[in-house]
Structure formats: C-alpha cells, structure tokens
C-alpha cells in the first residue's frame, strides 16, 4: 500500500475543477427559447413604448427664446453687449391650463459647459469651504485665479461664467400684472447643497472672503448673491449650484425656479403672460441662444418623445424578427435527434 501511494505521488488531483468537469449550465440558442423570447421582449417593449408615448404626449412644454437675434424681438436692444442693465419683456400666451407643478428653466444652446478645459477650471477645495484655498487657489482655475495678486473666490471659468440673467413672470389679467411666485428653493441636487459645496464656517460669511475678490464677470460677491435669504449665499446659493453642475451637452437647460406656491400651485391658467428679463448674459458673440422653458413633468420626468418611439420601434422589430426566425427555423429545421 505504501508503495502504491508513493507511486502516484505525482498523480494530479482528481477533482472536478482540475479535470475540467465542473458541473455547468450550457445554454444553447434553441428555437424554443429564442423565438418566444423575442415575441415577449417585443410585446413588452411595445407596451412600455405606448405608455411612454402617451405620457409624454400629456406633458406641456413652452419655450420662449429671448436671445434677441431678430430685430422684432423685444430683447434685441439688449443683445448688444455694450448695453448694461438692460431689461426686456417677452409676452406669451397660454391657451389652456398649464398643469402644475410648472418648472421654470433657462436654456442655453451652443454653450460648451462640457469643454474639458472649462470643466476642470475650478477649485474643489475652495468650494468645499477650505480657507487655505481661498488664499491660494488651485492652478486649475487659471486664468481666473488671481486679479493682480488677489485670489479670486470662487475661482475658475465655471464660476466666473455663471449665468446671471434673472426673470420675473407676470400673468396679465385684464391689463394688470400679477406676479407669479417663483420658488428658488431646492432646485439644486441635495448632495450639492448639503455635501459637495460648503461655505467656510465663518460668521458672518463676508469675513471669510476678506482678501479675495469676486470673479471678474460677477456683479456681486459670492456672499451677497441672494440678498433676500442669508442662507442662500456663498457656495451654497441655489443658482450657483445649478450652474456649477455642468451640462453634458452643448444645448442644455437648467432649472431656474419652480412654480409651486400660491395661486399658481395648480398650474398656470390660460391667459397672457409677461416675462421680465434682466438681460445680462451675452451669448451672441458665439452664436449662442437663450431661452426660457416652462414645463411640467410626469412620473417619467419631462417631455420625451424619443424614448416612447424608440421603444415602439424596437418592440415591433423584435416581433418582426421573431416571425422571420420562425420562418427560417421551419425551413431549415435544426436536425432533431432521430
């Protein structure tokens, strides 16, 4: 026996693993699975597609371009970059009730927030309230790092180019303008507001900014962004947060306000409206466009026709494909075992 054992000391282990005999599931693309599978997928997609399409149809969207390219546009006069503190008014009309809650967006097109050099031009340490970075901003902020020798806070292109048009919406009821209350709370991501961006823990906030300058394009320093609400200043100002969340694509819209309060919580009734725009942000130099978008949402978010149509198309293709496969299968039947 000892000899026996010794003889086979080199014998490989006889395990399922070493002998490649592990139990395994060996799926095969058999007709019994594939064809019904395709039919099922197709039907499911068609179902979802219909649902999406119908939902999407029920969503109302209203866009108002206020760039002022055409001379007829009320904002034409403001589009000249030399004109400062220009205010223009766009009038529009809503035919039927614009169901609430209504969301108020501003949109920019041909605007490259996703440009790499633009995106990296900020100092995350500064924005998370690190006072050291107030004095010495990160090099990534160049060329909006210093004015002379004074550091810019918040530094970098992103902050510097913050959108600074402001809007007021009025309903014109028999000639009288009733202001629609715009709610600017909670328009930024929760994590942005609570985690990612932090003001330095200095009170008053203004002191933290001693020895720094505001970004060159800004008219007000960061700690005075919202004079109405002291908690909405500094790096956790909602509009700032919205701007700092870069858009993925060159045509984008960002949430400006919600219409959720007061008389308009249920929606904007049919009628005439006037949009008063403090026109500050120049876009014409690079062929950009500015617009205001009013929209309501469903369970699946905003209006999105593509998704529904795509689902319908893919679903029907699956069904068609399954028929083709059925024909092929019937014709060139895979040999069944005799």
């Amino acid at each position: 026996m000892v000899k026996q054992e010794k003889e086979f000391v080199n014998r490989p282990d006889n395990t399922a693993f070493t002998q490649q005999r592990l139990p395994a599931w060996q799926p095969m693309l058999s007709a019994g699975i594939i064809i019904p599978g395709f039919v099922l997928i197709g039907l499911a997609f068609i179902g979802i597609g219909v649902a999406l399409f119908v939902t999407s149809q029920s969503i109302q969207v209203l866009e108002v371009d206020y760039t002022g390219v055409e001379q007829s546009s009320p904002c034409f006069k403001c589009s000249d970059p030399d004109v400062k503190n220009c205010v223009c008014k766009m009038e529009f009309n809503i035919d039927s009730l614009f169901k609430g809650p209504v969301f108020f967006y501003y949109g920019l097109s041909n605007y490259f927030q996703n440009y790499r050099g633009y995106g990296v031009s900020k100092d995350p340490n500064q924005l998370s309230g690190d006072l050291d970075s107030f004095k010495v901003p990160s090099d990534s902020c160049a060329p909006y790092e210093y004015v002379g020798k004074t550091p810019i806070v918040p530094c970098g292109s992103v902050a510097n180019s913050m959108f600074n048009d402001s809007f007021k919406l009025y309903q014109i009821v028999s000639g009288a303008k009733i202001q629609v209350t715009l709610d600017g709370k909670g328009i930024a991501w929760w994590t942005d507001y609570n985690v990612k961006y932090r003001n330095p823990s200095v009170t008053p906030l203004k002191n933290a900014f001693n020895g720094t300058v505001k970004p060159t394009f800004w008219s007000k320093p960061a700690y005075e962004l919202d004079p109405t609400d002291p908690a909405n200043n500094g790096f956790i100002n909602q509009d700032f947060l919205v701007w700092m969340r870069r858009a993925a694509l060159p045509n984008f819209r960002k949430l400006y306000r919600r219409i959720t309060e007061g008389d308009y919580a249920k929606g904007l009734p049919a009628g005439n409206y006037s949009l008063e725009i403090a026109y500050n942000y120049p876009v014409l130099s690079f062929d950009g466009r500015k617009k205001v978008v009013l929209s309501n949402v469903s369970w699946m978010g905003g209006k999105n026709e593509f998704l529904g149509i795509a689902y319908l198309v893919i679903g029907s293709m699956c069904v068609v494909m399954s028929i083709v496969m059925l024909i092929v299968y019937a014709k060139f039947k895979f040999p069944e075992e005799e």
Partner: protein
Amino acid sequence: MFRKRLPPEEERRVRANDREYNEKFQYASNCIMTSKYNIITFLPVNLFEQFQEVANTYFLFLLILQLIPQISSLSWFTTIVPLALVLTITAVKDATDDYFRHKSDNQVNNRQSQVLIRGLLQNEKWMNVRVGDIIKLENNQFVAADLLLLSSSEPHGLCYIETAELDGETNMKVRQSVSVTSELGDQNNLSSFNGEVVCEPPNNKLDRFCGTLYWRDKKYTLTNQNMLLRGCVLRNTEACYGLVIFAGPDTKLMQNSGRTKFKRTSIDRLMNTLVLWIFGFLVCMGVILAIGNAVWEREVGSLFQSYLPWDPPVDNFLFNAFLSFWSYVIILNTVVPISLYVSVEVIRLGHSYFINWDQHMFCSQCNTAAEARTTTLNEELGQVEYIFSDKTGTLTQNIMSFNKCSINGQTFGEITDPLGPQPKRLDFTPFNPLADLDFCFYDDTLLESVKVGDLHTQEFFRLLSLCHTVMSEEKSEGELVYKAQSPDEGALVTAARNFGFVFRSRTPGTISTTEMGRPATYTLLAILDFNNIRKRMSVIVRNAEGRIRLYCKGADTVLLERLHPCNQELTNITSDHLNEYAADGLRTLALAYRDLTEDEWEAWSESHRCADKATDCREDRLAAAYEQIEQDMMLLGATAIEDKLQEGVPETIAVLSLANIKIWVLTGDKQETAVNIGYSCKMLTDDMTEVFIISGHTVQSVRQELRRARERMIELSQTRDAVKEAGMEGWGEAYFTGNGLREGDGTGGRAKQLPCPPPPPPPPPPPPSNLMDNISGEFALIINGHSLAHALEADMETEFLSTACACKAVICCRVTPLQKAQVVELIKKHKKAVTLAIGDGANDVSMIKSAHIGVGISGQEGIQAVLASDYSFSQFRFLQRLLLVHGRWSYLRMCRFLCYFFYKNFAFTMVHFWFGFFCGFSAQTVYDQYFITLYNIVYTSLPVLAMGIFDQDVPDHRSLEYPKLYEPGQLNLLFNKKEFFICIAQGIYTSVVLFFVPYAVLSDASQSNGVPLADYQTFAVTTATALVIVVSVQIALDTGFWTVINHVCVWGSLGSYFTIMFALHSQSLFRIFPNQFHFVGSAQSTLLQPVVWLTIALATAICIVPVLAFRFLKLDLKPQLSDTVRYTQLVRQKKRKPVGRSVGGAWRGTGSVSEGRLGARGGSRRSGYAFAHQEGFGELITSGKNMRLSSMALASFASRHSSGWIDTLRRKKHTPPSTSGECSPAPSCVSGSVPPLSNSSSVLGGSQDTPIEQETGTAPAQNTQPVPSSSSQTPPAIVPDSEAAAPQGQAQAPNAGVFNSSAVKCHGGDSPGGWTLSLSTVQEALFGWKGIAARTSGSNSHGPPSVAKETSQIE
C-alpha cells in the same frame, strides 16, 4: 553573464596538471549559468527587459504625457495602476522562473566529481573543475566536462559511453585513449602526467575533434575517438581518467544547447499585427478629432473665449489642436488595453495548469504527469497541422520482445483471442533456474516442445544462443546480464536463455552455454559478421563432439535464397508465417544452419584467409568467401520480434490523421526499421495507393525520383477519379449524407458515422491546373537521409515539398538531428502551418526547438528533449488529448476571449470619440476617471477571464470522438482578421448606441422633481452603467459553459460595479478627499430615475437583440460542427435522463475511432530484418578486445570449464611486461606467419570512428585504413617485414576469431589476463589482445594483426 569578452580563441592549449599554466588563457570554468538575474540585478535588468516590450514602453510614454497638464485628459493613475499591475505580475513570473533556473544550475554545479590534485583524488564540485584537471569517472556517472580520455580500467584504454543525452542514440559507443596515456594506469603516474594538448577552439560539432597531444617530445594525434563529452554516461567501465579540455559553457553540450528561441504563437503574431492596426486606428481617430478641434477652436472656440479662455500659453487654435491630439491619444488608448497582454498570459497559465492537472495525461507506470513547460503556446496546440515525430522512444518503447516464432513449419506464440481472458504468462523458473524473470511469453506449446526434446526446437534455440555478438556478464552464479549491441539481439538471446539454451560467456575463441541444464562449450571458428548488404550473420562453431556447424540468421529475403533445395516445402510454410508476422508489424529473421565437414571447413578457411589478406577489394572478396559457405543451408525457422510500440500509438495516429494533421516520422533508424514501424503504427497501410521510396544518392537521381513519384500520383489519382466519376452519382449522395457533419449542411451528421468516413476518401475532381493540391488517394513517401540531404538543398526544396505534402504519410529515415530541424524549418517556411515536433532524445532537440511546438517524451532516460521542449508527457498517445482536447479548447477559448476583449474595449472607448463631436473636441471623457481606471481591471476582467479559462463548447471526449472538430483551428477560423473586424464593428456599433441613446433621451429629460438629467455626471453614470450591463450581457451570451465560477464572475462583476460606484460616489469618501471624488451623490441621484433605467434597457436591447438574432440564424442556417455536436449532446442528455447513465458509457465506447478498420490489414511482404546493428562487432569479439573478465568471472570460468586453453591463459598472464615487449615479434615466428600491421583504431569498428552522421548513414564503414609506412617509429619497434605492409586490418576480419581461438592456446594467453594485471606497456597491449595464430591443427596458421593504435597516429 558579464563575463569578460575575450578575443575568440584561435586554438586551445591545455597542459595537464598545471593549473597555473592554464589559467593564463582564462578558459571558462566548469560552472554553468543559465539564470538571468541575481538579487541585485533583478530589478533593473528585469525592468529594462520589460520596457523593451513595445506595449510597456507605450504605456510609459502615455504616463509621461499625462503628467503634462495641458494634455492630461485623464489622471495619471488611470495608466499607472494597470501598468504597475502588469509589471509586477511579469516580474514575479520572471523571478520565479529564474529561481528555478538558479536551483537547477546549483544542482548541476554542485555535483561531485573526483579530481586528481597533487596525486590525490579529491572530491570537487563540478563547478570547481578547471581546464587541465584530471578527473576520475566511475561507472554510470555523467561526464562532467569534455574530457580527453587518458586511461581506463578496461583493457587498452577502452571505455564505453552512452551518448543518449547528446545525440539520442542509445547503443553504446566505445572510446579509446591514446595508448601512451592508457598505460599510465594509476593515479601516481597520472598526476605526473604533464602532456600538453593543442586543439581546436570550442565548437558545437559533436562528432569532430581534432587536436594533438605533446608529451615527452612526441606528438600524438587526437580525434573524437579519444574524447568523452559532457552529457555522456560512462557504462560498463569501472573507472576512467580524463583530462578536462573544455569546461562549462565551452563544452560541446552547452555549445549545442544554444539560446532558447522565444516562441510566439500565430495568435500572438496576429494579435501584434492587430494591435499595430489599432494603434494606426487610434492615430487616425486622434487626427480626426484634432482636426475637428482645430476647426472648432477656430469657428467656435475663438468666439467663446470669454467663457472658455484658451490657456495663456496656448493662444492658437492649431497648437490647441495639436495638444488635443495627444489628449485624445491618452483617452482613446484603452482600445489597446494594457490588460490585454496580462489577461492573455493569465489565460494561458490557466490552460497550462489544466494540462498539468490532467489525469488522463498522467502515466502511472512512470509516475509522470504531463507538464506544460512553456505557458505561452497553448492555443497553438489547437492549430497544429504537421507533427514531426521521432521513432525510437516516442512511437516505440525501444523494447524488443521475442513475440512469435516458426519452427519447422509450426508457428508458436499466437495469442489466440485478443479479446479473451489475458493468457497466462509462462513461468520458466521451475524448468530453468537461469531464466530471465522479465521475459514474457504466453504460448506454452513452445515450452512443451523444448521439454520433450524436439530436435528442431532445440536446434532453433541453440542457434539463437550461439549466433550473435552479445557479451555476457555474470556477476554471481546464474545472474546473467547480457550486453547486447542491438536490442533485437538481446531479445533473441534472452529468449533462447529462457527456453533452456543459456548463453553464459564467451572468449575470443569459445562460447559457453548451458543447454537444458548441461554446460556446453563450443569452439568459435568464425564469425561471418553482419553488414547492410549481406543482411545476415553467421557463426561457425565446433561442438564438443567436434562436429562443425554453421549457424546463420538473417533477413528472409536473402536467407531463403541460400537454402538447400530440399527445404522447399518448409520454406513455403515458413514464408507464410513470415508474411503473417510482417503483417503484424513484427521484425522477422529467418534462421538456418549447415553442417560442415572438416574438409569443407578447411577448404573454406583457406579461401577465407586469402580473401582476408587481399590488399585490393578485400571487402568484396570477403563477402564472396562468406557467400560461398552460406549456401545449401537447412531452414530452422523464423523469429518475430516486436518492436514494442508505445501504448495506443496506432489509435493516436489514426485520430490525429482524422483531425487532418499530417504526421511525419523523422528517425535516425534504418529504412527497414522505419518502414516496419510505419506499418505497425498504421501510418502506412496496405490500403495505400502507393508507397514511394526515395533513396537516390545524387541530386539528379533524387530529383528524378521525386518527379516520378509526383507523376505517378497524378496519373493514379486521375485514373481513380475517372473511376470515381463514373460511380459518383451512385454513391455520392450516400456519401454526403453519411459524412454530413463535414461542413455543416447539418442534415446527416450522426455521430457514429463521422469517425469512419466511407473507405473512398472524398476528393473533389481536381482541376487540371494545380494538380498537386488535389491529389486523391493515399500515398506515402519514404526518404532516406542521404536523399533528404539533396532534397533539402535550396533548389530542390519546393520539389520535395510538393511531393511530400501530397502524401498522407512521410517517413524520413537515417536523418541527422540537423536534418530533422531542417525538415521542420522547411515546412515552417513554405507552408505557413503550425508544426509540432515530438521526440524523446537529445537528437530531437534541434527539431523540438525549431518547431512551433516542441513536445518531449519524459520518463525515458534522457532529459535533454524534455528540457528543450514546450510540453512534456510520458506517452505518445497523450498527444491526441493534448491537441484535440487541450489545444482545441485553448484555441477556442483564446479566440473567444480576444473577440470579446476587443469588442468590449471598442465599445468602451469609442464613446469618447462620439462625445468629442459634442464637447468641442476637447478630450473630455464621457466617464468618471475611476470608471476608466477600473473598467478593464475590475468591472469586465473576470467574466472574460473565466470564459477564457473555463469555456468548453463540447466535452472532452466528444472532441476525441469527432477529430474533425479540430479543423477550425487549423484553418484559423475562429480568430482572424475578418473576425477581428466583426468584433470591432460590433464594438463600434455598441459605442454608437451607448452614446446616442442616452444623448437622445437625456438631453431633454428631467427628474420627476424637475431637475434636468442632462448634466454631465448623470450622463456619465448612465452611459457607464449601460456599458457595463451591455458587455455583461454580451459575455453571458458568449459563455457557453456556465460553471459556478462563471456565475460568480459575471454576477460578481456587475455587483462590484454597483458597489464600487456607490462607494466612490458616497458622501463619506467625498468628505475625506473632496478634491478627488467629484461625483458625489451621482449614482444615487441617477439610478433612482426610471428614465435612466429605461434608457439603459433600451440601449441594451438595441445592442443585444441583433446579436441574438444573428447568432440564432447562423446556428440555423450554417451550423458549425461543434454546434451540431453540442446540440446533439444536449438533446441526448435530455433523452438520456430517464434511461440512465449507461447509454453514456456505450457512447464512449464508440469513441475509439475506426478500430475495425485499423485491425484488418492484408499481409504485405516486408523484410523485417532490422538489426539496429553495426558491423564490426564480430571482430571486436574475435579480437577479444572488448572481453571484460573480472577475476571473479574468470574464476568461475576456470572452475566450470577446465578446457585447456584457460590454463595456458593463466600461465601466460604472468609474463613480465618487459619480456612480453621484447618478444613481441615472437608470436609471428611461432605462428609461422608475418604479423601485419593493423590500424587498431579501425579495429574498434569503423562505426565508432566515423562521425555520428556517418554512423547513421548507410555507407559501409571503412574498416581498413592504410597504415603510414612511417609506422616503424613506434617505440616498441615492430619490424614490419615484407608482408607487414600487406593486408592490414586482419583483426577486424570477421573470421579473425578462428585464429584467436588458437592463439589462446599457443601464445595469446595474456590477452584476457595480461591486461587485467598491467596495462603498463604498449608492447603488451600490442600483443596481448591480438591473437597470434597458430591453429591447433597447425595447418592454417595466420598472421595476426598486431600493431597498436598509435602506429597509425604517429605523424
């Protein structure tokens, strides 16, 4: 490694026992070093080597680019993490390899050898042996360095070596020292020896050595005959002394070993090409995007500067575009992921382990498992088209067994029923105490026949016990060891021994046997030695009663012609038996005897002597003399020896050739042997249309023969086709349905039909243009070594190739190791096919190294082949499993892996390209940089690795049952440029979907709280998630064999993606490193949106649905064989369930391919004469030179056979050396004849003297060489008188024994005795062993050959 470069040696001067003198020349020491690194050099050298890899340098370059802020589109860690991982893994592997090399070096360098230092033998390690040292070797020791043999314990400075490690030949070779040194004898003399050797510089020619020994103002020529090379083993020699000439790296063994070529697989090469293409593609994309960037910056960016200012140093759109190009190179580099190479290595390593672990390739007899010694070639095992196999030790076991015999018309040894119960092995011991216990024989009728004393049977075995050149050694009573020069002879003598005719010992003039328990002594009158032309050997003996009889054994073809006419009837019966034996692939010999009267003998003896003395045409005259007496013989019977094949060889060859692998046998053996083996392992069959034999000696004749063979093939195949076309309609249909699995029409294809295609192979009618490609019919080519030499010349190559490749089987015989390699190179060069060489001996090393894949048979004696090989196992039959199972799987897995790998990386990377058009070509990545870092090494690596390691399309036994499954590998179908483009196209398609679907959906979408979804981070997370899901679904589709591990990997990878993403986007991590984790909260915010999931589902469906549909249709419309097999397998499994497992067993049974067909083969008459035999041994015996009689054996001799001569012998051996020297001419006087000069080096047998290449060549060895007339300078001056210059080389005359027998009586007594006592003088050597003849009768006294070797060497 850092040995000083010395100017190349012009010549080598070595002085014995003078280390100081030799040190001047700085010769290499005997320390060998195959390792590459030591602890200090490891890191720098290894890193240097690794960065010589283009890929690694490329990634280093990328890393440097990433450190430039203007370019860096990705953080540095995205590159350095994988790079460091790769470098570490490789370094660890290299370190392990080198560690083992260190270990083996140490083991060799620390072997002990005995070095003579200042007159004392001291144990020294091998590495401390220096050039010029004298070392002592003992029996069965390895030679430590290249030595000049100085003296040996054997007579005349002879020693025996086995050179298997060097050239693979297993028969023993004789080496002899220069006689002046051989007499040095003991240590004291040797330590004062101060001869100086001047010789050629180190080289790798194993068969040549040329040098001169200067000693005591005399010059002695040194040849290879005096050398013991490192790697040889000393055999049958108690001890010998040698002078170290070449040591360590200078030895011929090491010079021959050469640097191992780094082998790459064809997939490797393809992969490298593809990677280059991808680089090209990468550059193209970079250029496109850079141009885009230039245009964009000019048209848009310049206007946008208030928001997107250009960097101050970059104030120019062109420069911006230039930087953008490099930025894109960085982010798009993932199309060639660094993990590709590592993953490939990991997969191959896994496959290698599976090979090592395979129990089916474990040989329990030799306790060796298969070993993948190289881990980089596995998938090439699945693409082999040509196998070059050695014969001895690879196909055969090199064991000869006495299998059958025919005695007086009756055949013995038939095994009645191969399927019946194992017949009982005969037990010889009760009958014969001297029997060899290892001998196997099953037919007891033969034993009975011997026992009852059948005369024919007894004579049959008597012949076998007498007619041979075997030497015996009897250490103790009854413990016989036979030293046979060829295993055939050994088998025959052993058979005789077991059947009661025991050959016990021989002297130059006698043979002592024990016949049926009674001792008997025969006087050996003559040995009519074997040679290639005669194909037979005879002995003439006189028995105790004085009757003279000639015993002859030889090839039936020659022997049957020389029989007495009265044998006619017996001849016919025996011929039938011979045919049967030959049909079984046995080596046959016919045996006959002839009684001679005293007068006949005298007469012949006289004529023989004349022939022997003749100066011109001695060979021919001797042959004529032999011919004269080998007539009118009486047939005794025939023997059949089985050259035992390795287990399962014919089956393996059959399976491999069904897999469309061509097998060439390259052997050093003779044509007959090789052909014989060809038949017995079913490479050649009688069904073959024709077997061509090319054996021309000139270029013209070889060319002609090749052409003729080709013409004949075309001719034959045309006639065949003509016949076939007529019958085509008839059976064509049947054939195609029968063999339906061939190329997926998927209609017929039943398993059982597949392995045995119907007898007529299916040739498409050959278009007249390329006739040679469409040869139908089975042809075989046998080519001889000398013809091959011509065939391998440059202008003949194509000629040879086109002929050989049209043949089903090719056998090259008598090829040298170099030619083996040349043949392999030839195929490699012209055929673009994957070649595999398999062999066991050192002579196969060159071929193993030059083939794409080298396989060594382990467990045999030599390990050279194994060391040079890429794979080793111990049985040839494991080759089918290695190729058809492991190779096939490896290839399949590797191809699937590569396809998927390129796919997933294109899908991943190309998204950046599309995004470039929407982000101002600014090299903004779509994904989070952590995702980019981890995608290849974490999220998607394991599932594809698991597939690459574990996937199986069909189970292992299926691939052996359907060898055709191997074909896709040979045709390179699973991964080639077309497949690559398909993968890439799929990858690009996926990337388009992955970018544009989220683009279309998200650009206007918003969360249900109104927050838009089109922000960058949401977009990144959506795309990344969709990507991971799509590639996971794709790998799930590609995986055909879902083991637990695959499940764990696929689900685990998906799980890890989500886990890691949530972790990286978590608040806690952000709080610690606010600078690093910008994506805080994105995962949660994004993945909670139903729209995002709808997007991902949509993208997945668009990516996968077409693939599914395509695959299904392909499976239905154009199924591959593997699909069919897999399908039937699954169906069977389902059906089998209620039946139970037994069906499976039955199925397995059908697996052994077409055994029926293999079994039956009509007889074809082949001469099985296959002595692995060299001529000249007859002389060695009759000269008594190689007689080795220990005093013990001598004593037992004396006691048992008190024949008169032995007493004489004992008396004579006390003759003092000096007198013996002085009276040297005396014997010639006594004999009354003149001692002719003899070149003793040629006495040893030309075969030993000739270079190895010639040794295997058929040219008859040159036995005689004219002795220079200046021979009178010999110190022991032998005065050659008038006749002295006349016929030399008497000694090697096969019948010299005649004289020796008498020499013993009158004078030559000191031949066996004298040398045992003193080897001190040349004179004694001269006369001691050369029998000086004076026949007892006195009538045929003859001049003995009697000049020592050095006479010929004196300049």
